[in-house]
């Protein structure tokens, strides 16, 4: 199971990073989503991998799983979900205002008037 979890985190991070570096907003948004999945699974695994254990320490329970990473993941999921929604709306607005979906505002090889202002 360790191999499975570790390699899936690795795969998600690889794909997420690759997509994040693309020039258009849609792959970037997907890349960020994949990256946040990878982080969530990673964070979950930081409480050690256990199966069929209660998340609470009680009388008579000697083996239990760490509840804190689960709480952290919950917070992280809520935040990344909200952020994904925000960036989707933002990229649509940017597309409508600028007229293309490139992150730096211009297609490759085509200098725009916005480019030389900086």
């Amino acid at each position, binding site marked *: 199971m360790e191999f499975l979890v570790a390699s899936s985190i690795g795969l998600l991070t690889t794909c997420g990073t690759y997509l*994040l570096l693309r020039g258009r*907003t849609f792959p*970037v948004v997907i890349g*960020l989503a994949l*990256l*946040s999945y*990878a*982080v969530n699974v*990673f*964070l979950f695994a*930081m*409480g*050690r991998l256990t199966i069929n254990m209660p998340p609470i320490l009680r009388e008579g329970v000697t083996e239990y799983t760490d509840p*804190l*990473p689960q709480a*952290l993941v919950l*917070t*992280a999921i809520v*935040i*990344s979900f*909200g*952020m994904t929604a*925000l*960036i989707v709306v*933002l*990229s649509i*607005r*940017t597309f409508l*205002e*600028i007229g293309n979906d490139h*992150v*730096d*505002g211009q297609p490759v090889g085509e200098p725009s008037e*916005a480019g030389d*202002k*900086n």
Partner: protein
Amino acid sequence: MGDWIVIPIVLPAVMAALIVLAVRHDILLQRVFSITATVALVAVTLSLLIFANGNGPEMYALSDWPAPFGIVLVLDRLSAMMIFLTSLLGLGVVLFASSEWDQRGKHFHALFQFQLMGVNGAFLTGDLFNLFVFFEVLLIASYGLMLHGAGADRLKAGMQYVVVNLTGSALFLVGVGMIYSVTGTLNMADLAIQVANIAPGDAALLRAGALVLLLVFCVKAAMVPIHFWLPGTYANAPAPVAALFAIMTKVGAYSVLRVYSLAFGDTAGDMAWLAQPYILPAALITIAVGMIGVLAAKRLNNLIAFAVIGSMGTLLTAIGLFTPESISAGLYYLLHSTFSAAALFLIADLVVSRRGQFGDSLNTAPVFHQSGFLAVLFFIGAIGMAGMPPLSGFIGKLQILDASRDSDAMVWIWSVILVTSLMCIIGFGRAGSVLFWKSSSLDGEIVVEGAKWPVLPIISACGMLGGLVALTVFAGPISHYLNGTADQIFDTSQYIRAVLGDGALAQFGQ
């Protein structure tokens, strides 16, 4: 006094909700609420500052859960100073925005209060994951503020800003996760104890986690090579927001100082002063990059944004030395650079709004309204930013140079800071002469509709410059306070005792 520690977080949070729910249709009421709340915040943080000056660190346990299991807020000299600075800056910004900027989009005041809540929370929290949450609060509010009033350039810059910060947040969680996996704690005081007693087999993971976290803080602090988001964001943000963002980079610098002096300081064994070898060289390059940008800038707002990068480099140089003298000098420079950056962004907006079609491009244009008065303000602000006498930038840089005297890197620090100061003077001198001086050789006058003497913005800009003057005049007492702050930062047992009690200190071996 303990319960008052939570007020700087609760007050803006309640106000923001109230503004967005109750008075969202009435801009006048929004302004009244927002300004009143910010004035109250200044009063509360001032009393907390006075309290912190006379007492040791004080803890507030949220929901009364005892540390290290619950989340704690900690008020010490450093955090008290930072929240007071935030509220003063916030007051200037909200006054400036209340003249006209807050009508260019919706919900400015609600977002502004949320931003204050996030920044204050980040300064007060004593828990690593809670720091992440407050980072997110302040970032989410800043996304909204950054896009306030929209426009193509601003949306483009905003998109890049959001993507960079979301990636940073993901890395933050990775770092926190790694640190938690080997130490089993997120409480910073408890972390200091666990790091000191770390098992040798876990040390490598802990070190990797701590360095990932350092990377995230340096994204926030705009340190080279991860500074590239800053010029576009600051130059395209609405002026009052850019002024408010002057505190955002300081949040990153504060986090570096807090985490890497408390948990990875003297007591951390093999990992003592983990951040030091990375920060110092990167900070020196940051100064150089910033000031080269100042020389190269073709737009006024870009010029100021690169000057902000340069001043962050100077601040991080002082922090990166990690000695009590350098921290004290760095904190003085932090106060100074916050006010000078905010003042310059506000003054730049007054200039830009009077230049009509010429905007903020650094080209010669005909004379505009109040060009003489604004030239004086710009001159004072530029003197402050460049660090020329008599203003506080000079005192700050002098202290940093003095504090680096014993460092191995002294030659590098002195030469970089002195040469880049000259570059900054040239950059600002050139910009000022193009904007104010050469314009008088052209015929005609730019006429722009609108208030000729907008009262609130001018009060606000002058107030920021007044902050610089106050820092200069009261340099003695402020330095005295900051020396005490630096001593407190280095005596980590005070912080740990306040959070965990005396029992934990025995474990700490002190």
